[in-house]
């Protein structure tokens, strides 16, 4: 068994193997706590808001939003990119860190992956429902049809999005599920109720922990991690191409792919931090998600935040250096135009705020990390808002310049996707092991 000599234990509290099972299966095997019910109820109310506001949009038309002939994308695509960005941390943590053999990932990768999946579900809602005719939402799929074999446009970044998001979602789901199988089997075998036995039995696919299967399992996990790593990088690259391949000043930039990926990792870790700080205290998992974990993640946040900040500055430089007046105007307008409040919110949340993580205290104080993670989330939402709205609202022809403000329906949809996300997450924490038991068991030091 691997033991790093100079590292602190990744799991504290001197846990035995059965302690791990007991601790992690407790939420599944017991009645949910009051906190859980409170959180779930709030989330579910938000989910109801989502259903109502989406229903209203589909019934009445996209006109219920504040978008107009100049700014045709507003909160919808902002939220889409925001959620996709959040959806990056999970696969990134499990895949890249697995490739780098970072064992500290083991206690957080499960929930991070779950977060990925739920975030991608939330993200997918926006490109779907921002369509004027959502009932024809299957048309971008490359399906042969009766129209004399009319296909789709492989030049369109939106089509790339369709492929990227659906691939990312399904591969992440597979990866997550594969990781869950041994743990589901554990729950199955511990189960006392018939119902639980049946369902966990159904989903465990007959896993019995044989050494041969573990051997194959590890190979598969490695391969999936191997393909997921470029996948996770490609997804936000492709999302960034929605903007980068266009002609709009402020969008048409080659820096977007790396910049978006860094931003995605940044926001993803921000969201993971938000969730884990809550989860470790609500579910009593301090021994598994230690301060060490949090500290490692804050370092990533600080690094990626600075990378994003660098990208902001580079954009300005390139715009100035390009000599294209439209480009120059777009960036000046971002920083000093009518939407400068959004720009400076973004700058302070994403570039300046994470710099406090240079201090050890900031990296190791959970409540402070929680606040910072919220700030990071806000900042990254504004980044997308700034990119989309401020670029569109003043582009080439000055006659078409316009302002955009969201309507209550758009706000409700965003709040609603929060509800969707957290409802999923609460259900996940109730019904599935939030920590990868099998992996944690392999790293605890019960023998000493």
């Amino acid at each position, binding site marked *: *068994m691997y033991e790093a000599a100079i590292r602190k234990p990744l799991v504290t509290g001197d846990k*035995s*193997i*059965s302690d*791990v*099972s007991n601790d992690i299966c407790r939420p599944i095997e017991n009645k949910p706590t009051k906190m859980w019910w409170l959180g779930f109820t709030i989330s579910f109310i938000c989910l109801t808001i989502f259903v109502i506001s989406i229903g209203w949009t589909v019934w009445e038309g996209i006109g219920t939003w504040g978008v107009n002939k100049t700014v045709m994308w507003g909160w919808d695509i902002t939220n889409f990119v925001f959620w996709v960005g959040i959806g990056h941390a999970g696969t990134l943590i499990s895949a890249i860190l697995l490739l780098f053999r970072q064992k500290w990932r083991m206690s957080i990768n499960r929930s991070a992956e779950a977060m990925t999946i739920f975030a991608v579900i939330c993200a997918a809602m926006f490109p779907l429902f921002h369509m004027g005719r959502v009932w024809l939402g299957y048309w971008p799929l*490359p399906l042969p049809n009766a129209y004399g074999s*009319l*296909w*789709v*446009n*492989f*030049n369109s970044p939106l*089509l*790339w999005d369709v*492929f*990227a998001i659906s*691939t990312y979602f*399904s*591969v992440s789901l*597979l990866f997550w599920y*594969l990781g869950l*199988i*041994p743990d589901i*089997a*554990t729950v*199955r*075998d*511990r189960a006392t109720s018939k119902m639980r036995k049946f369902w966990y*039995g*159904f*989903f*465990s*696919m*007959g*896993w*019995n*922990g*044989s*050494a*041969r299967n*573990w*051997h*194959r*399992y*590890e*190979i*598969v996990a490695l*391969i999936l991690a191997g*393909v*997921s790593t*470029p*996948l996770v990088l*490609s997804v936000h690259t*492709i999302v960034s191409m929605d903007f980068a391949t266009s002609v709009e000043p402020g969008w048409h930039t080659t820096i977007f792919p790396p910049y978006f990926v860094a931003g995605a990792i940044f926001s993803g870790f921000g969201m993971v931090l938000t969730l884990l700080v809550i989860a470790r205290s609500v579910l009593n998992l301090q021994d598994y998600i230690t301060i060490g974990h949090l500290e490692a993640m804050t370092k990533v946040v600080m690094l990626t935040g600075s990378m994003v900040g660098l990208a902001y500055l580079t954009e300005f430089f390139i715009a100035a250096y390009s000599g294209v007046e439209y480009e120059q105007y777009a960036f000046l307008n971002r920083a000093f135009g009518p939407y400068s409040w959004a720009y400076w919110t973004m700058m302070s949340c994403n570039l300046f705020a994470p710099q406090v993580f240079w201090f050890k205290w900031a990296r190791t104080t959970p409540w402070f990390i929680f606040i910072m993670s919220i700030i990071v989330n806000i900042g990254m939402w504004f980044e997308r808002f700034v990119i989309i709205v401020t670029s569109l609202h003043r582009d080439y022809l000055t006659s078409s310049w316009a302002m955009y403000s969201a309507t209550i329906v758009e706000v409700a949809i965003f709040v609603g996707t929060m509800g969707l996300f957290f409802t999923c997450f609460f259900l996940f924490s109730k019904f599935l092991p939030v920590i990868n*038991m*099998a*992996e944690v*068991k*392999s790293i605890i030091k019960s023998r000493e």
Partner: protein
Amino acid sequence: MLDKKLIIGVYDDGDNLLHSVEKLRKRGVEILDCFTPYPIHNLDKALGIKRSNLTVGAFLCGFTGFCLGLLLQFYTMTSHLHTFKSWPMIIGGKPQNYMMIPSMVPVTFECTILFTAFGIGILFFIRAKMIHGKIPDILDPRQTDDRMLLVVTPDQLGEVSRSEFDSIITSAGAIEIREHNPEHSNDNQH
């Protein structure tokens, strides 16, 4: 597996199991299988399991995805396969031949990944004989929790006698030795 007569060593520590396996293998005992709640490093090597060919399968799946992705786009968007000629689409003055390959990169890439991931997943389930709703062959309900099992059939013991076997594994840390008899399988299973 459950239809055979089995000797089962029960452990509560993976390292002990690993040592037992190493000792037994040294003595020429072929081990039927081990059951552990978590992957024990080097256990597969100790058991002498041949490296799986799943990686090759993954490559083949990925390659299929790559080809299919590229073919789909060549078929629908370019004139090279003589299919597009029947429906020429002028899209923003973009090329209609191999020059549009840059536009094909994302979709081809995604197809490759998609096919690799799902191909390898499905291959794994086939090789591991796993499917939804399969009734697992469980020897000990704690084998997925905190117990590790070492399983041999009596005829695999070869020249090692049963008592010798018992002493080897007990000395290596087995906490219990059980026998599984398919005729009374219910006795061993709760």
